[in-house]
């Protein structure tokens, strides 16, 4: 951790400097709707509101954790940032490249700047190619190195993620999930990217392997000074890997804060429900606000606050009026009409606990 901190100190922007250096990733009001196939003869076309007005920025060298349940739009947002999906509206700027109006060569540059680590490593590699061929395909696509020194580049990349040269001529099917995920990470780093987007990198892995991969990602981040977007539904993973955390619900950000602020002073009922359901439940001291039911369909999100159907604190205002992201503390934004009520619950709970200690 010390190495990470030391590497970051010179680049850590002061509040005044923050505005002068442009962020590595800037997303402004990103919207992505997917059309749903028409049913029968109905004229009306409905849309999946996958990402609905998300704005966020990630400074160079920062790691942002993106949390949310399935269908909340996490992966869609990742694909938008990488330029793999065309947005319905909004702007995304990655390292100075505007992904909405980039040329072919700029797109290739974006590929070298930003790389993706997938959730299912076995699906991310061609099962008929050897691992060396999978890696070499990337190098030849970007015309890096000659045939001879490509193999050396690949061996170096393998060594960096803790694999030896004996893996070069194996197929993905002959390796364990942890080993294949290392290959996927090595491939992402071949082009020396500035940004690494990890889409649930460990959710398909066993507990002991997960710890290994997370350690590897942390080390690579400080070695390469990477800007990271870490997508996960697991708050423990986010807590370990991120500096700042954004919580996504049905295509909208509901809470954004620095890591410790979020884990210690979460104010959105949905964040608290996630904290409650995750393994860190016993060490978070917020009010226990368990979510009702299941997430509604993103085809027709509920009116008002999107979380009102599951929120134990919902009142009439929440069902009619959509809340806006509000700054409630320095660098801490919440989209909730009732965040003050949550804060009050947190305070009373704390005073009860303190009272108990005095007895």
């Amino acid at each position, binding site marked *: *951790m010390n190495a990470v901190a030391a590497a970051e100190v010179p680049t850590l922007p002061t509040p005044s400097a923050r505005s002068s250096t442009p962020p590595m990733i800037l997303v402004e009001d990103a919207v992505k709707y997917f059309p749903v196939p028409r049913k029968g003869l109905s004229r009306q076309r409905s849309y999946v509101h996958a990402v609905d007005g998300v704005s966020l920025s990630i400074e160079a060298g920062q790691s942002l954790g993106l949390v949310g349940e399935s269908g909340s739009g996490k992966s869609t947002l990742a694909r938008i940032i990488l330029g793999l999906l065309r947005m319905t509206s909004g702007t995304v700027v990655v390292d100075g490249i505007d992904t909405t109006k980039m040329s072919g060569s700029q797109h290739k540059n974006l590929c070298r700047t930003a790389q993706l680590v997938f959730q299912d490593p076995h699906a991310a590699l061609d099962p008929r190619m050897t691992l060396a061929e999978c890696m070499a395909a990337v190098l030849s696509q970007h015309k890096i190195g000659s045939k001879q020194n490509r193999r050396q580049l690949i061996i170096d990349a393998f060594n960096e993620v803790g694999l030896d040269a004996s893996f070069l001529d194996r197929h993905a099917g002959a390796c364990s999930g942890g080993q294949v995920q290392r290959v996927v990470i090595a491939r992402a780093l071949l082009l020396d990217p500035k940004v690494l987007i990890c889409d649930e990198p460990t959710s398909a892995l066993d507990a*002991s392997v997960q710890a290994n991969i997370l350690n590897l990602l942390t080390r690579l981040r400080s070695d390469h000074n990477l800007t990271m977007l870490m997508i996960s539904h*697991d708050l423990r993973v986010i807590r370990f890997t991120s500096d700042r955390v954004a919580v996504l619900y049905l295509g909208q950000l509901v809470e954004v804060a620095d890591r410790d602020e979020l884990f210690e002073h979460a104010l959105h009922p949905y964040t608290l429900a996630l904290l409650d359901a995750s*393994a860190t439940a016993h060490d978070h001291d917020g009010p226990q606000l368990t979510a009702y039911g299941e997430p509604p369909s993103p085809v027709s999100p509920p009116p008002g606050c999107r979380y009102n159907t599951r929120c134990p604190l919902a009142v009439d205002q929440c069902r009619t009026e959509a809340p806006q992201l509000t700054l409630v503390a320095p660098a801490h934004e919440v989209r909730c009409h009732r965040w003050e009520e949550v804060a009050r619950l947190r305070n009373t709970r704390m005073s009860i606990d303190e009272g108990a200690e005095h007895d």
Partner: protein
Amino acid sequence: MTELLQVENLSVSFGAAKVLDDISFSVGAGEAVALVGESGSGKTLTAMSLIRLLPRGAEVQATLLKLNGLDLHHASEKTMNSVRGSKIGVLFQQPKRMLDPTSTVGRQLAEPLRMGRGMSRSGARHASIELLRDVGIPEPERRARSYAHELSGGMAQRVMIAIALAGQPELLIADEPTTALDVTVEAQILKLITSKKRELGMSLLFISHDLKVVADVADRIAVMYAGRIIELGSAAEILTEPKHPYTRALIECSLLRPSETGELYAIPGSGHSARGPSHGCRFQSRCRISAELHIEQHCASDEPPLIPVLGRSPTHLCRCWAAVPDLQESA
């Protein structure tokens, strides 16, 4: 407690590879036992050999495989067909893949009711709607007419629970039933499974890799490693006072708490190397206790027996030389 399920010396091999080795445990009436371990440790294989749903080429050996007096090991295929569903219900990890995509939820629910309990067509229809309501599905009449692809993951798992309960089983096998679900839905499904278990007096064999989930559900836990049970005891014993180095390591790394150096603890080596020709403890090459006590040689040459831990309750069993007092003194 009367034993509902008794398993003694269960081994499964594929040709020369012995993937399950001498598994013995029991599940009492109304009890929840969890099998915990990483992928490839043999959890699912253990459960599936109870209902004889094994991949081709599997050879099963056991001295005893008994469910409430019925010998599962020697039962005919016809008997097994009636056991599956009516005596033993199963929940799988991928509920949406386990439902038939070409048939409605109602029809799939009616099948065990008509086959297993001999209900009439209309009786089964009413009963299946009641079952759907019972597992917390809103608008059960409408849901009975929907297909698997129209359901969310949590909803599909509720339907699977309804189907499993339709046969009124004595034992419910739940194989990672919440792994594919979101965390907020996971808690609801676990609550549903435990409340149904209590309500119907079923026994539960719960399979999971997630210790946190197991803590919510299980009365007793069996920890598996490379085809062996390496520790067995009450949930409290295993989770708060684990004895086997592997159990301790697994608990430590699933906490995902960084140490002072900022690193997460990870078990060295890989589980895939554990099934070599060695006769010793299968965890030896990754074990730090063995190295600390300087008993590597002994651990590598002889496999420890699964025996009660000294100074603990007689039902807390552990397969580790470091837990055997004589050896520690001699070392």
